[in-house]
């Protein structure tokens, strides 16, 4: 089961709970086994499994517990498309400030993001999926993948900037 490691990590980063991650991955494998016919040969099997896991998460976990984590995409997209975007200035974040940052601190910054933003960063930067694969996994158009990724990265940089500050780095 070579894909179980990324799947388990994805599940854990969605739920922050080892038992929930366990159940989510197990369910993913059982569903994949049951619906193996829906897998298109030649496509990315990892992306297919990630999509099943993501859908299970939305159906079984998110509905019940994490409503406040929902993001209003209408708002996000109009933000992105607006000419009057007041973006955090990227270049005030110094690259030097990252060098000594620990894995835990990076993980904390990532974990502090809303689940949809966290997810897109995991899929893109941690797992290396293409935009097209992410669009399939998340059932959203590629344009939305791009705008969500854009927003997620801005938010992540904000979090990293906060951490860098508390660590005493100058901006």
């Amino acid at each position, binding site marked *: *089961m070579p894909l179980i490691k990324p799947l388990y990590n994805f599940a854990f980063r969605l739920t922050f709970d080892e038992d929930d991650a366990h159940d989510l*991955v197990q369910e993913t494998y059982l569903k994949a086994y049951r619906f193996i016919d829906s897998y298109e040969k030649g496509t990315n099997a990892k992306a297919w499994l990630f999509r099943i896991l993501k859908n299970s998460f939305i159906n079984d976990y998110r509905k019940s517990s994490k409503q406040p984590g929902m993001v209003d995409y209408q708002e996000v997209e109009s933000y992105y498309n607006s000419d009057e*975007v*007041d973006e955090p200035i990227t270049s005030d974040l110094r*690259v030097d400030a990252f060098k000594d*940052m620990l894995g835990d601190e990076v993980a904390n910054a990532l974990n502090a993001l809303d689940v949809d933003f966290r997810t897109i960063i995991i899929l893109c930067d941690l797992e290396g999926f293409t935009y097209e694969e992410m669009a399939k996994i998340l059932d959203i158009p590629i344009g939305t993948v791009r705008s969500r990724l*854009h927003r997620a990265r801005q938010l992540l940089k904000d979090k990293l900037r906060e951490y860098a500050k508390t660590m005493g780095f100058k901006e």
Partner: protein
Amino acid sequence: MKSLIAFFQKITGKKKAYCCNDCLCNLYMVLDGEASPEQQEKFMKHIDTCSHCFECYKVDRSVKELIKYKIQNMEVPSSLIESIKNKIGPGKC
């Protein structure tokens, strides 16, 4: 275009993260390996002369690397693998 943005910044006191929207899109496309060779070349040429976009590129690249290399993977519990194997049946996964 550039002077228009500068003017916009002046009157609003706001600063844009990139010199233009085109750069911003291309930056992520380049970073994520989604840019065409032409887009890639155009962007790389641009950051040769635009220090602002060059800085942005360095920052975004190192954030991506932070996520990729610093976040540690969790160990998959062996009980999970066992339990899946038991449910699906041996030799089937």
